[in-house]
Structure formats: structure tokens, C-alpha cells
């Protein structure tokens, strides 16, 4: 809760122990708070942002063309499909569980969609709805077995990992691949269709929207908190945060505009991230997910139906896996046996963890899916550009993942020793 630990002179502060955590108002207070958090091990997204900057610096140093637009688009292009799997996985990781089936479910979803829309000529939109519902049902089934029968989630989803892959191969039949037309939704998701037709204003409009909505909502919240007499963010902090977001958003828009614009699938991904973030942080459903991830017994005693939360979270994961599968299939214009590539699963888990979502449950944000995928895709794009082979790529990815988990574990240890675990 980075935002709320400040105290205001006029607020009723008698509930607050004067020895602890007092915070001066204004920017100085914000900076002091920031330093205290870093020392306390509450690193947030700092390691991954620093890591990302280092990665970009290293590759740009090696090849000045790295930051040329094609790389940016390349990153965005490959990021969305696996990023959607990762987004669904964040929900599961917040429970402190794992879903190993997302890769297989994504492959199955793509095959299912292809069979419905191509082989049977069904309306593609109807096929998409059926596919997403199917993904959610698969997730709910796994969640039900986990929550109601008590089989460990790892085993249930491992069985799913094998089983759904089998169903996918059976659906695809002997040909093994079904080509998808590059039209309609597939075109939209393929990474080759662009926001506002790739017009240069598109990216900047999106960036402006993002910054403006964040600034306005922060200011509105500040006003409400101020009138309610509870601590609020100082204006200087809001300005600083909005400025940082502006640098990131307009920077991304600029890079993407160097090539063809902002891909529509990226826009969809960002929109889903915002919705998921809203659900997790602003609704009682999201609060329940955090509670179950933090302490199952406490959640149960607070009247939360732990089974319902578990089943619904696995359903969400399944639905995102299905959507991710459609996106992956759209980029390759085919639903094939490679759809259930186990690497997608590994990358999705790695992305969530690299982005800062704890494997131990109760701690994390959906943005880790985006940040983690940015790291992974940036490395992949860079290594690809340098012409390094797959063997080296895997080794480097392994080291990066390990580094992320080490940072997570170390920061947890620091948090414990400074009483903030």
C-alpha cells in the first residue's frame, strides 16, 4: 500500500502511534517513504524496471539498430499471446497456486476455434464466444477438482497439461494444422492490424488517454480523501507519477510509431490488464482473492467461500488461456500442434514471476504480466537480432528467471527482518 501511509496534520491521528511511520507531507515525504520502502525490502516493480533498462542498454550498445522500430513492434507482436496466459496465471499465483495447463488449454482453444469456424463454417464471433466459455469451463473443472476433491492444484493442472494437449491433437486430426483466414477477429488479433489503421496519432491518443485518466482519477481520489479527513497523496506525488507514466506511454507510442503503429492486439491486452487490475484492487471479489492467497483460514472465518474463489479463479485462468491461444494462433495464422508449445506455459509463468508476482500467494499485480513479458520479449528480440542460437537463448532466459526469483526471495527476507513480510 504505497499510497496511503501518509498523515495529514488535520486528520484525526490519535489512532497512530507517533513513534512510527510518520511522514512529512509533500514530495520530500514521498521520497523518504520511498527510501524507507526500498530499505525495508518492498521493492515493488523497481528491480524489473531497472532490469528492463539494463537489457535495452546492453542490446542497444551491441547493436544500435536494436531500438529501431521493428524491434519494438516485434516485442509487442509476440508479447500479447503469452502475455494473456500470464495475466490469467497472475490470478492463480495470487492464490498461491499454479496452473500448468494454460499452455495446453491455449492450444486446445485455438484448435477448437479453428474446427468450429473453418471446418464447420460457424460464425467466427460465435466460435470465439464458445471458445472462451470452453476455456472457462475447463478451468472451472480443474478448479472444482482442486477445491472440492482436494487434489493438489499442481497435479490437477499437470494432468490437464497432458490431457488437453491430447484432446487438441485429436481435434486437429491427421492433418495436424488448420489454417486460419487473416480476416475479422483473427486479423484483429494477429498483430498486423493497428489502432486507427496505424495512423501516427493513434499511439499518442492512447498515451494521452492513459496519462490523463490516471492523473484525473488520482486527483479525484485525493479530493475525496481530503474531504473525508484521511491521508491523501500530495499533488506533487501525483504529478511525479503521471510524469513517469507519460514518459513510458509516450515513449512506447513513439517507438511503435516508428514502424506501423500500435497493434490492436496490444490495445486489447492493455485494456484487459486495466480491467483485471480494477477487479483485483477495487472490487470485493479481488479483495477476496488476495485474502485467500494470504490466509485461507482467516478467509473462511470471514465468511468467504474459499472453494468458490478457487473455482472462479481457475475459470478466469482458463478463459485467459483460451484468448491467449486465439492470439497465438492468429499471429501464425494457423491452429497447429505447436499451439500447445510447453514453452508458452513456461514463459507465462516466468513472466508473472519476473514481473514481481510472488509464487507464495497474496502478493502481486496484473502489471507483472506486462512487465515480465516485456523483459522476456526484449531479451528474445535482442538475442534473435544478434543471431544467437536457441541454446544460448534458453540459457539466458533461465538465468533471468532465476535472478527474478532470487530478488523475490531476498526481498521477502529483508521484509521479514524489517517486520514487513
Amino acid at each position: 500500500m504505497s499510497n496511503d501511509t501518509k498523515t495529514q496534520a488535520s486528520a484525526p491521528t490519535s489512532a497512530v502511534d507517533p513513534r512510527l511511520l510518520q511522514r512529512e507531507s509533500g514530495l520530500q515525504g514521498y521520497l523518504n517513504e520511498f527510501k524507507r520502502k526500498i530499505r525495508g525490502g518492498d521493492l515493488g516493480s523497481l528491480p524489473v524496471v531497472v532490469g528492463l533498462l539494463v537489457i535495452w542498454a546492453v542490446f542497444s550498445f551491441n547493436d544500435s539498430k536494436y531500438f529501431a522500430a521493428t524491434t519494438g513492434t516485434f516485442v509487442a507482436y509476440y508479447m500479447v499471446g503469452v502475455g494473456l496466459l500470464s495475466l490469467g496465471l497472475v490470478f492463480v499465483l495470487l492464490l498461491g497456486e499454479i496452473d500448468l495447463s494454460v499452455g495446453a488449454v491455449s492450444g486446445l482453444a485455438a484448435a477448437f476455434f479453428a474446427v468450429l469456424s473453418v471446418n464447420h463454417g460457424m460464425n467466427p464471433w460465435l466460435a470465439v464466444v464458445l471458445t472462451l466459455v470452453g476455456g472457462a469451463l475447463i478451468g472451472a473443472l480443474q478448479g472444482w477438482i482442486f477445491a472440492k476433491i482436494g487434489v493438489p492444484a499442481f497435479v490437477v493442472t499437470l494432468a490437464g497439461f497432458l490431457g488437453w494437449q491430447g484432446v487438441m491433437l485429436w481435434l486437429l486430426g491427421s492433418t495436424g494444422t488448420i489454417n486460419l483466414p487473416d480476416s475479422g477477429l483473427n486479423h484483429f488479433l494477429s498483430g498486423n492490424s493497428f489502432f486507427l489503421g496505424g495512423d501516427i496519432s493513434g499511439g499518442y491518443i492512447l498515451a494521452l488517454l492513459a496519462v490523463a485518466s490516471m492523473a484525473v482519477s488520482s486527483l479525484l481520489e485525493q479530493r475525496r480523501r481530503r474531504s473525508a479527513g484521511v491521508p491523501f497523496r500530495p499533488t506533487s506525488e501525483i504529478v511525479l507519477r503521471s510524469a513517469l507514466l507519460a514518459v513510458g506511454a509516450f515513449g512506447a507510442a513513439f517507438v511503435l510509431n516508428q514502424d506501423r503503429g500500435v497493434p490492436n492486439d496490444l490495445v486489447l491486452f492493455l485494456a484487459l490488464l486495466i480491467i483485471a487490475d480494477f477487479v483485483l484492487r477495487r472490487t470485493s471479489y479481488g479483495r477476496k482473492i488476495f485474502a485467500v492467497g494470504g490466509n485461507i483460514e482467516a478467509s473462511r472465518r470471514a465468511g468467504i467461500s474459499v472453494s468458490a474463489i478457487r473455482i472462479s479463479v481457475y475459470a478466469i485462468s482458463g478463459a485467459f488461456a483460451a484468448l491467449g491461444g486465439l492470439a497465438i494462433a492468429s499471429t501464425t495464422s494457423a491452429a497447429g500442434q505447436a499451439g500447445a508449445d510447453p514453452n508458452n506455459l513456461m514463459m507465462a509463468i516466468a513472466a508473472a514471476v519476473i514481473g514481481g508476482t510472488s509464487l507464495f500467494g497474496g502478493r502481486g499485480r496484473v502489471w507483472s504480466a506486462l512487465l515480465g513479458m516485456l523483459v522476456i520479449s526484449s531479451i528474445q528480440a535482442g538475442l534473435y537480432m544478434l543471431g544467437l542460437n536457441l541454446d544460448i537463448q534458453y540459457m539466458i532466459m533461465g538465468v533471468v528467471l532465476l535472478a527474478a526469483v532470487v530478488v523475490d526471495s531476498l526481498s521477502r527476507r529483508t521484509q521479514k527482518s524489517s517486520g514487513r513480510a
Partner: protein
Amino acid sequence: MTSAPVLALRGVSKRFGAVQALTDVELEVHAGEVVALVGDNGAGKSTLVKTIAGVHPIDEGAIEWEGREVHINRPQDAQHLGVATVYQDLALCDNLDVVNNLFLGRELRRRGVLDEVAMEQKSRELLDTLSIRIPSVRIPIASLSGGQRQVVAIARSLIGEPKVVILDEPTAALGVEQTAQVLDLVERLRERGLGVILISHNMADVRAVADTVAVLRLGKNNGTFPVQETTQETIIAAITGATENAVTRRAARTAEAAK
């Protein structure tokens, strides 16, 4: 007290497999009354509390709420009736902050969205009226000390405006000053007209705040005493089984050996 008890247990029994945890237990709690539930380890205090709280549904007997029989099969049932329980193992979510823990399971909403501002405001008011001192209402529970967690847990039980509050060993892990604070808090609950069931091993605490002492021994009632008119020895005798216990047996043995 002439009015019907707000909560009454009539002949409640509970078994776990071969273990008969509770046998024909009776208990009455009136509004504005502090009932201390005492008994040795394994006497069934915690089990009794859990049957009221809906964690373990009763096997036999009846639970009456304001004079009519109710069925408490799930924690939610107890919550809806107006029973709030503070367990010994506080059951707070370490990863959530104080406000979120206080309102866990009954979040305030504004147009369907969590109303953090109102929740934070109410948390501060509540903690203020209870004179609870914590660093900030927005730090995770993991950062608080044991005593601070205890008072947060008790404060949390009051959020839902309950009629009966069950406190399981609320002072067990607390320092002198914090114990006094919790006892003050218990008295304030009584002044508010709540029924309080206080489980405690500490006779000083019991005598300080309780109106009635209900003694459990081996899963059965072993007497209910008004605190004012009962000596500590009588209560302890009821807890330990008075005439027939290890101490008297040992005395008998030593007396025999001495012959």
C-alpha cells in the same frame, strides 16, 4: 435477568469420531453480560466456541437465539445472526493492511466498487474509540506486534455490529498494559449492551470483568457461578474436579505411604 438470553445452548453434544468433545452442555448469555467460560485444557472450551461460531455444527441439542431455535451450520450463519468470534490464532491476513482486515468479508462499497475512503475513515474512528494505537491503518498486519494484532482482531469483530462477541484467550499473549486495555475493551462491549463470552485461563482477568463464570470439565457443565458471590477456590475446584483430582489422589497416596 428476566429477559430471554440472547444466546442459549440447550443440551449441546459434539463428537469427533470416537471422542465425545461435548456432552449435554448448557450455556446462556444475556445482553450486557460477560460470561467467562473456563475449564482446564481439553475441557471443550474451544469446541464449544466453534459450535457457536459455526465451524463445527452441533450433533445434538439446540441453539436458541433471542428465544427461538436456530441452526448454525456455517460460519456465515453465525455471522448473520450477530455472533462475532475472535480466535486465539487471530485469523488475520498478513498480506492485507489493517483496514482491509477489519472489513474483510463485509467490505463497504460505493456503486459496486470498494469504498476505501469510507472504510479507512471508519477504521480510524473505531480504533480511536477503542484507544487502539497502531502505526498506521494502512500497513500490512505482518508489520504489527502480537498485542497490536490482538486489538485489531477484537476491533474487527465489532465492525459487523454483533450482539454476541466471543473472545478466545484474548489476553494470553499480551503485556500488562495491553491486557488492561483489552479488559477495558471488554467492559466497553458490555456497556454497549453486547453479550460477551470470554474464554480465559487467567482467574484475575475473569474476576475483573466477568459477571458469570461457566465451568466446563471434560466436555460437560461443571457449574455456573455469579462472580461476585463466588470465591476463587470454588471456581478452581470446579475446574479441576474438586474432591477427586491428581492433587487429592497424591495427598491420599502420600498419606498412605506415610503409614
